[in-house]
């Protein structure tokens, strides 16, 4: 017997007979939306590795679209099967909730992502580089901007088709984020969707330094916020002895039965709860872009490739607000007397700062960034209501807002001059004379942002303010209305610029997009108007989806 075999036999014999690890029970069918998207993402990586370069773009586009549509179909099937209402429950050993808000938000995220993928795939806007049509993404992300490698990549006509699988990974993370039912799943989902976004932000074809700067800023600040969140998770574990939402809620409510002896000294320590809860909230508020955690928003929105900005502004906000809602409504409702005053403050400051600072902006993308901050404030007003009405109003607002945002950023990609997209506002002067249709469409989106009746923005705003007023937050409504008035000023300013200013001689041109971007914009306009004129069906949908499973 050799020496090695002897040691081996000792080791195997001295061990206890192996205990059977119970296989976790996973409800694959109920997790199918996420799994489908993840599967498509993995397939996308394989496509990147094995298909010839010229085939990758169409195949990736098709694959992403099919994956997202299939995911959406799965969401519909689950909702039709009653998982949004009667059969709502907690799946995957307590890690993921399958309930109304989760399905509603997942459906929204999937649709929004589908539209966003269309804008990712647009290849008619940028002038052809060396005879090859290119999209808004860098020829080779890893190349140093302006370096020889980059020039070679451009010359060879490379395109970064890996953005599709990367985006799909982000979508998968976003799907889990609002459904996460324990703090670890929450954190993992956060990282799964954040990391791809950091990468996507740095991949702009034009103005690469700005793009990379935005990626670094987003990454550093995002890493900080993730750390805060993780620290909060640890403290909450110390407080409750568990990371499941229901378990923590039990401890908060004082209905817990058994306490882990190892944690007996800290369980129920309110200092841990308050600090941990605050840290987790900070992590989430960072993602929704609420003041004072909004600093990254303008720079990242400006630097990122515009299709990515649109995707981020729409889908991230939906996912993050979903997670925030679940945390506040499922984990911390017992603590609402503590968090409501704080969130009041955050909502008020967010609305005001977003609206006031936006007034001074001169860049379309930064303007939309600050406007997204103001809108985060409006949504927070609905979050604070702590009622089923509050939930459904937030759900509705998110759906309405994300399509307007996507559409608006898609229009921004069309207005171009020699240096790529012309995002400086002065260049938009007289756009209404030169291309009435594009300017009119952008005006529709701006009016929706401003909350003018007959657009989805008005319905959404009315829904959240109504919920807030019924929840007793009248001052919030008044601040909201006032900041809406301020916000209206700068939306209107852009309209004035487009329609009433003389066009400049060296002004930008409006590129004629392919069917992809046109579809994205058309869907944006259609949703904006339908949700403005006949919102009842969708309000019903959001209303039915307004109950969290515990």
């Amino acid at each position, binding site marked *: 017997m050799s020496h090695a075999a002897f040691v081996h036999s000792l080791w195997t014999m001295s061990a206890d007979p192996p205990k059977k690890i119970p296989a976790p029970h996973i409800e694959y069918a109920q997790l199918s939306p996420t799994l489908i998207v993840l599967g498509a993402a993995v397939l996308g990586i394989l496509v990147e590795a094995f298909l010839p370069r010229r085939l990758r773009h169409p195949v990736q586009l098709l694959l992403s679209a099919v994956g997202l549509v299939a995911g959406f179909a799965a969401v519909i099937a689950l909702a039709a099967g009653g998982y949004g209402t009667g059969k709502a429950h907690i799946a995957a050993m307590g890690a993921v909730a399958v309930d109304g808000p989760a399905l509603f938000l997942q459906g929204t995220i999937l649709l929004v992502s589908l539209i966003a993928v269309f804008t990712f795939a647009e290849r008619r806007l940028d002038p052809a580089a060396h005879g090859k049509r290119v999209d808004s993404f860098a020829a080779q992300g890893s190349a140093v901007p302006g370096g020889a490698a980059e020039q070679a990549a451009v010359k060879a006509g490379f395109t970064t088709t890996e953005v599709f699988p990367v985006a799909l990974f982000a979508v998968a993370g976003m799907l889990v984020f609002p459904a996460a039912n324990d703090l670890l799943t929450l954190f993992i989902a956060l990282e799964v969707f954040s990391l791809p976004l950091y990468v996507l932000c740095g991949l702009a074809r034009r103005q690469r330094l700005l793009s990379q700067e935005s990626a670094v800023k987003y990454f550093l600040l995002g890493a900080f916020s993730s750390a805060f969140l993780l620290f909060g998770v640890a403290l909450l574990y110390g407080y409750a002895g568990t990371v499941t939402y229901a378990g923590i809620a039990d401890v908060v409510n004082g209905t817990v039965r058994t306490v882990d002896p190892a944690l007996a000294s800290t369980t129920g320590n309110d200092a841990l709860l308050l600090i941990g809860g605050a840290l987790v909230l900070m992590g989430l508020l960072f993602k929704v872009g609420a003041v004072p955690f909004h600093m990254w928003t303008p720079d990242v929105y400006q630097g990122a490739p515009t299709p990515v900005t649109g995707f981020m502004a729409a889908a991230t906000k939906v996912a993050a607000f979903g997670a925030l809602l679940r945390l506040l409504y499922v984990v911390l409702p017992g603590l609402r007397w503590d968090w409501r005053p704080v969130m009041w403050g955050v909502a008020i400051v967010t609305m005001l700062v977003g609206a006031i600072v936006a007034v001074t902006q001169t860049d379309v993308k930064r303007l939309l960034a600050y406007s997204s901050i103001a809108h985060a404030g409006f949504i927070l007003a609905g979050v604070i209501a702590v009622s089923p009405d509050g939930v459904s109003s937030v759900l509705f607002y998110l759906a309405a807002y994300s399509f307007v945002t996507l559409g608006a950023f898609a229009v921004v990609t069309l207005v171009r001059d020699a240096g790529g997209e012309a995002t400086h506002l002065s260049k938009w002067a007289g756009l209404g*004379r*030169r*291309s*009435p*249709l594009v300017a009119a469409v952008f005006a529709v989106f701006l*009016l929706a942002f*401003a*909350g*003018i*009746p*007959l657009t989805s923005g*008005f*319905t959404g705003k*009315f*829904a959240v*303010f*109504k919920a807030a*007023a*019924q929840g007793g937050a*009248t001052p919030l*409504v*008044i601040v909201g*209305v*006032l900041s*809406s*008035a301020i916000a*209206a*000023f700068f939306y*209107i*300013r852009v309209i*004035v610029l487009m*329609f*009433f*200013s*003389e*066009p400049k001689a060296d002004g930008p041109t409006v590129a004629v997009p392919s069917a992809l971007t046109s579809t994205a914009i058309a869907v944006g306009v259609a949703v904006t108007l339908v949700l403005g004129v006949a*919102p*009842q069906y969708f*309000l*019903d949908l959001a*209303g039915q989806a307004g109950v969290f499973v515990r």
Partner: protein
Amino acid sequence: MSFPLLTVTAAVPAAGAVVTAAVPAARRTAAKWLALAFALATLALAGVQLARFDPDSGKPFQLTESHAWIKDFGVRYDLGVDGIAVVLIALTALLIPFVMLAGWHDADPLEGPAPNRRWRPTQGFFALILMVEAMVVISFEATDVFLFYIFFEAMLIPMYFLIGGFGDRAGGRSEEEAAAQRSYAAVKFLLYNLAGGLIMMAAVIGLYAVTAHQLGTGTFSLQEIVQARADGRLHFATVTERALFLGFFFAFAVKAPLWPLHTWLPGAMGEATAPVAVLITAVVDKVGTFAMLRFCLQLFPEASKWATPVIIVLSLIGILYGALLAVGQRDIKRLIAYASISHFGFIILGIFAMTTQGQGGATLYMVNHGISTAALMLVAGFLISRRGSRLIGDYGGVQKVAPVLAGTFLVGGLATLSLPGLAPFVSEFLVLVGTFSRYPAVGIVATLGIVLAALYVLVLYQRTMTGPVRESVRGMPDLRVRELVVVGPLIALLIFLGVYPRPLTQIIDPAVGRTMSQVHKTDPKPDVPTAPTNDVEAAK
């Protein structure tokens, strides 16, 4: 189901707007005729409304339609007209064709290459007018507060484009300067009204919260709220009612406009073309005063009474301030704008005097002011279009060159100063009588407004039309056929309603009486000083 007359009356101009906007760029003239046809169809429908309306039916609203719309917000698509609304709809539908005819060439593209083959300013101009008409009509018809609010607010957008997008091309300024001032005026218009509207939105939400809390389900139905208040099912706390009232009133006062919220009006009317100025003051602003009558008084009667003293003082200031500033104007259109501010003071005074004569007079005033301002402003617009200047000082002796123009201008002016025999006299008289019977001092001071009106109108006429013929005026063509078609009927109407206002008062009065009864106000008993009797001696 009966024929949805009210919906159709609003839908026809809305459809017209879409159709007109879609006319190809080269077919400008066709677009104009098409738009005019839609406006005339709307006028016919408004006529049918008037014919089918029964003033003495005793029902609060007639021709009603009711459909569920947004259940979650308790919003219904409820339409219905009372005597006040039906008359104002008729006014709107009547004025729009004239506005279109008067502005027939206002939106023709400038000479030179078009910036874009899809650039269609003419189509846009007429489509926007029709859009405004549709929204104004439906705001007069809505009996659901939320439905009203939506169109009250949405109407700002087409109005804004009309003010900012089309203007007089001259006035001694460079093209850029004119465009800058125009867009400034448009933005000011929009921001004032949007701010008013957003504050109203807070009040609308508050109204929902109160009704939802007390009735179980939130509602915006005017009738239901009034009924619930009468039954005692719904009770506003004093503070709540006042806050809600102020939220609503603020929006209407901006729109009307009431001093000191009027400052957007002179700019907007001065910079807009004359037909658009008519649209602002004669049509859109009426929604503000109308809404005070329909929503402020009926929803919040107690708060209305509470606020009356302040509002009366403000409208009194508006009457005198508007008139005084009109006297000092050098710009014809701004002069008419300030005169309108003065007249809106009278209308609001009449509404809040809370007497039948006052409110009836105010409603009649809305109609008459619409017609008289339209006549005066449109003739002024014709004058301005001939010489390209809005300054009074640039004219003189026009009556020798263009007698018909001068004559019609004089009639419009005399109507504005409420000459007996012309329509506005009747309404101004009623407002003053109604005010006097409750607040004699206010009535007396308000009368000063008439004196000042005579001053600014006659001075305007004297300086532009009489005197030696100025060089710049020589050879000025008189009114053309199209212009006569615009002015003639308006003047005929002014004279007819001045002599025989009964057809209108007959329709208006029952509605006003109902409003009064909802505010729980009765007319004060005539208080005639009695001759000294022998009581004193008898007491001895």
